[in-house]
């Protein structure tokens, strides 16, 4: 009886529309936020922040971006990595060529540029569906890989093709310790997650889901498929682009185009499928799972005395990801997020199963 719904009456539609309707949920999220903002930075060491928590946060953000498109609007993308790359290189060039602009504005503009590219590559989605769209977004992925490698202007003609982010100076606040970087990412993630949640429970989100569930029926209630799909592409790529900026500027520091290859795109796709399509919470769960699994695979066998080669670990990773994708699609297409919800419903009844 940890969850008790009885006695909590919602007396207005405003209360019924709240993100967290139950008192227990509100307490829970407050606790999580407190731990994330205060507890973790106090307790975690540099390795934990740098190698696990910061990548987790940024990948969660990118997964939210893909989830808006795939999970809410039903449009597949195999090019999320490319949208991240567009964000990262846009921000790099903005900071490089227009140094007078504040860095925060660079981030924002980079997101907008990614959104613009998203709209352009979303245009085919009006004429083609599902599987064809997969190829269209794959086209973007390969084109972006090539462009950032071969068109030297993007990398400012550096001989190696690798570029380095500028100093992270936000109106005088210089972000240079791992803890500050963590806070920066956390701030972005919290803000975007809230905005995304608001969007999906508003008119726009409902029109996305309508397109996802039955585009023909969506049309007769006055939704214009083109408008809904393109807006989903735009918002999704904005978020992915922003995640790309953070990945490059905050996590990597200096990077090559390879950082945003098709591997990244697939990894994000897996996060969304495993975490839960059509769930903001799922994006976090999926990102956590995919971030932690390789680390676990690297360390767990050693702990029980088995030594695996690096190649072996990466093959194992492939196999486990592949298997999990199939299993989740068969058994729980709504992913970890749905399992979490089922768990909560059980808790609501616990210890009386009826």
């Amino acid at each position, binding site marked *: 009886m940890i969850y008790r719904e009885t006695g909590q009456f919602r007396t207005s539609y405003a209360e019924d529309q709240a993100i967290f309707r139950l008192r227990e949920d509100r307490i829970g999220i407050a606790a999580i936020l407190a731990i994330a903002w205060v507890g973790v930075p106090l307790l975690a060491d540099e390795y934990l922040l740098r190698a696990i928590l910061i990548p987790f946060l940024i990948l969660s953000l990118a997964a939210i971006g893909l989830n808006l498109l795939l999970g809410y609007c039903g449009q597949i993308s195999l090019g999320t990595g490319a949208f991240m790359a567009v964000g990262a290189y846009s921000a790099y060039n903005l900071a490089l060529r227009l140094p007078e602009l504040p860095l925060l504005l660079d981030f924002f503009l980079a997101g907008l540029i990614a959104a613009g590219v998203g709209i352009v590559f979303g245009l085919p989605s009006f004429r083609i569906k599902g599987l064809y769209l997969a190829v269209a977004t794959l086209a973007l992925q390969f084109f972006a890989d090539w462009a950032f490698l071969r068109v030297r202007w993007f990398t400012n003609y550096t001989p190696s093709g690798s570029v380095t982010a500028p100093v992270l100076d936000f109106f005088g606040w210089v972000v240079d310790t791992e803890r500050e970087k963590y806070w920066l990412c956390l701030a972005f993630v919290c803000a975007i997650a809230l905005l995304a949640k608001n969007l999906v429970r508003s*008119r726009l989100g409902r029109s996305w889901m309508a397109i996802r569930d039955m585009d023909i029926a969506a049309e007769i209630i006055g939704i214009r498929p083109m408008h809904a799909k393109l807006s989903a592409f735009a918002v999704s790529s904005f978020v992915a682009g922003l995640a790309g900026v953070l990945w490059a500027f905050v996590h990597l520091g200096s990077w090559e185009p390879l950082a945003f290859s098709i591997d990244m795109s697939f990894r994000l796709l897996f996060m969304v499928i495993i975490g839960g399509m059509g769930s903001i919470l799922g994006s976090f769960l999926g990102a956590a799972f995919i971030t932690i699994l390789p680390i676990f695979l690297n360390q767990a066998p050693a702990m029980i005395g088995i030594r695996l080669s690096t190649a072996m670990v990466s093959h194992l990773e492939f196999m486990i990801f592949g298997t999990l994708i199939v299993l989740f699609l068969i058994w729980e297409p709504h992913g970890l997020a749905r399992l979490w919800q089922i768990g909560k419903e059980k808790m609501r009844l616990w210890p009386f199963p009826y």
Partner: protein
Amino acid sequence: MAVASAPVATSAERAARRERRIGEVLLAVENISLRFGGVRALSNVSFDIRRGEIRAIIGPNGAGKSSMLNVINGFYQPQEGRIVWKGRVFTRMRPHEAAKGGIARTFQNIALFKGMSTLDNIMTGRILKMRASFLEQAFRIGRGRSEELRERAFVERIIDFLEITHIRHVPVGKLPYGLQKRVELARALAMEPELLLLDEPMAGMNLEEKEDMCRFILDVNEEFGTTVALIEHDMSVVMDISDRVVVLDYGRLLADGTPEEVRNDPAVIEAYLGVAHG
């Protein structure tokens, strides 16, 4: 005719009330012809629908009834003919134009959004009435907040009216067939349509569900003054609730008139009733 006798008023009273209410021509289809490749789905069909009436479209399977509805709300583009909607002439109607102009419809095989709750499904019917900007929605400020509350209140009235309060938060994919049909009607009503197109609203229902649905259709027509055009196979329902009936057969207009006229039309008896009732 037991099916529709449930409503409070007797048939005679209702007919008299409707007589006063039925107004000018709301929609006219003129000489519509529709082909798919070599198959003629509709040939040279014309009829009109007057404001405030309940208009039935009947005919054997494959007569072109659903195709007619699809032409009216813009899914199919007829090769010939035109549609006059509220005095405006369209040679082709687009689905979103139809929706904006006030035409709503339900489908023969339910077309709900399976992954969304009943409430969200019905809320989608209000999408055209909402004006909040992108930023207002993202930050849930201004109209982004007030509209959600206002439209929710509106939708709740429809939920009350159709007696589906208990399934508000249930994903529609989990609902039984009869309730799904009702939710689909609710979504169409949420659009506050001037013309409601219903494609076999009672197909596959048991007697009790049919009675409920008849009552809802009559109530909608009387209380909101909504014009209704429906396709239905159950002749007793058609004869009882509709003001005028169009009969289609092999894509052609066979007869058009009051239920009595149509029932006594020799061509109709030959082609349709004759076959159906031996």
